[in-house]
């Protein structure tokens, strides 16, 4: 078996493993530790060059207080929620239906449509920047949450459909045949037979898409500006003034912005890992 279980290795290897692991972890987490450290420092530390040392005074309350009460951060957090949640619902709902159709029905262009969905995933999204921006401007959706949500749904549906179609394919087909024999309409088969069986896939996909969309920076910058529509990932730069970057506030803001997906990960860890591996072995 690979990798060899740790218990079966030599004592010396076990010890070096136990020493190396925390060391590697610290190196790996160094950027995050730095951000956490920055977020409790007073501004003076950055002017004095005290980047990595111990904060000269403990300013967590004033920094985080400023983030929550003296900036547009709460607004941006709400925007993020209002962008992420409709996207998750929309993308998952559409892809369930598309996956059902592609997984259950046999029609001539089935494979072709499926390939089109997959092909969409291979388009590097950066090249869509200019046309998508023009499209949203022409549709009067530029700088609105709706515009961002619609684009995210459209773009995420490709991956979600691939995922759902493969999952539905793996369901025992006799279940559906049995329902058909009973004379249940196709619509109700989807709702009452297939959908309940898809719960693990739904949960996994929802968690995955939530983190994707919450962490999206690129489209947030391209399609929105200002506190009316921008999500938190893009809004964080608001702490930069015209001449100076406020490292301490940006760090505190980043930590706050990162909390929801991190919380999501720990609460839904099981589904998250399922989401990454689901359909990987078939």
């Amino acid at each position, binding site marked *: 078996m690979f990798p060899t279980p740790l218990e079966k290795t030599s004592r010396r290897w076990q010890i070096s493993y136990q020493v190396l692991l925390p060391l590697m972890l610290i190196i790996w987490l160094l950027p995050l530790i730095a951000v956490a450290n920055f977020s409790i420092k007073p501004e003076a530390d950055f*002017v004095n060059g005290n980047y990595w040392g111990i904060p000269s005074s403990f300013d967590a309350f004033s920094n985080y207080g400023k983030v929550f009460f003296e900036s547009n951060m709460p607004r941006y957090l709400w925007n993020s929620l209002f962008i992420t949640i409709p996207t998750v619902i929309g993308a998952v709902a559409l892809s369930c239906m598309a996956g059902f159709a592609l997984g259950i029905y046999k029609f001539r262009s089935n494979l072709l449509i499926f390939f089109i969905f997959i092909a969409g995933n291979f388009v590097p999204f950066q090249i869509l920047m200019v046309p998508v921006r023009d499209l949203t401007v022409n549709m009067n959706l530029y700088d609105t949450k709706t515009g961002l949500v619609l684009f995210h749904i459209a773009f995420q549906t490709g991956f979600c459909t691939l995922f759902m179609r493969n999952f539905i394919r793996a369901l025992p087909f006799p279940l559906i045949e049995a329902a058909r024999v009973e004379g249940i309409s196709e619509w109700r088969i989807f709702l009452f037979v297939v959908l309940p069986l898809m719960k693990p896939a739904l949960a996994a996909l929802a968690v995955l898409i939530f983190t994707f969309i919450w962490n999206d920076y690129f489209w947030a910058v391209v399609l929105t500006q200002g506190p009316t529509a921008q999500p938190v990932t893009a809004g964080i730069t608001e702490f930069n003034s*015209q001449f*100076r970057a406020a490292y301490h506030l940006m760090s505190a803001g980043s930590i706050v912005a990162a909390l929801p997906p991190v919380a999501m990960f720990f609460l839904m860890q099981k589904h998250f890992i399922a989401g990454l591996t689901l359909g990987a072995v078939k």
Partner: protein
Amino acid sequence: MHSILKTSLAALVAAGVTASPAAADGHALSGELNIISDMSNPAPRAVMEGMVEDFDALHPELEVNLTIVDREAWKTQIRNALGANPPDVVNWYAANRMRPYVDAGLFADISDLWAEPEFEALSSTKGAMTLDGAQWGVPYTYYQWGVYYRKDIFEEYGLNEPSNWDEEKANCQTLLDNGVKCYTIGTKFLWTAGGWFDYINSRTNGYDFHVALARGEIEWTDDRVRQTFANWRELIDMGAFIDDHQTYSWQEALPFMVNGEAASYLMGNFSVAAFRDGGLTDDQLDFYQFPVINPDVDYAEDAPTDTFHIASGAQNMDAAKEFLRFVTSADVQTEINSGSGLGQLPVNANASIDDDKFLKEGFDMLSGNAGGGIMQFFDRDFDAEMASVGMEGLQEFMVFPDNLDDILGRLEETRQRIYN
């Protein structure tokens, strides 16, 4: 902020806003006035909103609509905004930055406003607002550049503010002998080196030469340009600048001065707030005007100016001009540039300033001792592409001064491609 502005405006109204011919004629302004502003950072935003509110209150029949656009985003949006369905008034920058919009006929010629006697008070920036012999906008704020230095370190080694190049170098040598670098600088984002070039070039060859170079009328390989670099090189060869400056941003170069490893910083006045945050008191921190190099040329100063312009397609020209008179009046400029507003310098020479020694020195310097002219800073005076290639070259020169011939050849090639 609003209330302060209002009281001062009340005074203004009481005194009669005589600058306005429209008002003097008895025609009240009416219709809509659409303004797009790029003052999107929190403090400037509040200033802009307050100013518009007050202007609106002065003209009851006029409906003033303000749209605030992100400052960075505005740099790419302005052309679109001025093209189709243009607003009446927009924010932009002075000098060569106006060039694309003036050439495209998108800014309105407002030379008639500048001919009014009230605009005499803005004469320090008239040159910067002039292209092709006409004026295309009005300034509302600027800030000075100069040498910010550690007074306590200077006193420790018995140094005085230098007034010429020899004194500057002598000071520097004393500092170096005592293990203190003369200047901190962070050239990672290039522009800081542009400040050094602006000053050494304008002090060596004068404002007119500098501006001609910026307009692409002089070859980079010209001997006078070489003289500028030779002067600069004297400092570099002394080891006057901190080591590895190409790896720091301007903020990351601050600690060297705050911790006393370097004695001075050629910077804009916005650095003062940072120095104070770092714990330097006004007893430790002081300012001097960049010293004379060539006694035959007058002082020219970097003072990046932010401006208002009227779109050539403006629907309400009268109201737009009245708004420009409003923002350039001494009282309004005093208010918007105060510490609770922008914290910068008013351009109007009759405006007053906050009780701050750096603002005072800067105001006196720009209004009284910048006879050569006001430069807008390297990346605003030069063509955008020339500036970006140019600043890369300046940074390279500061690190590898021996590459000068190569660098100048490259800059000259770029100049010929862009300006011909």
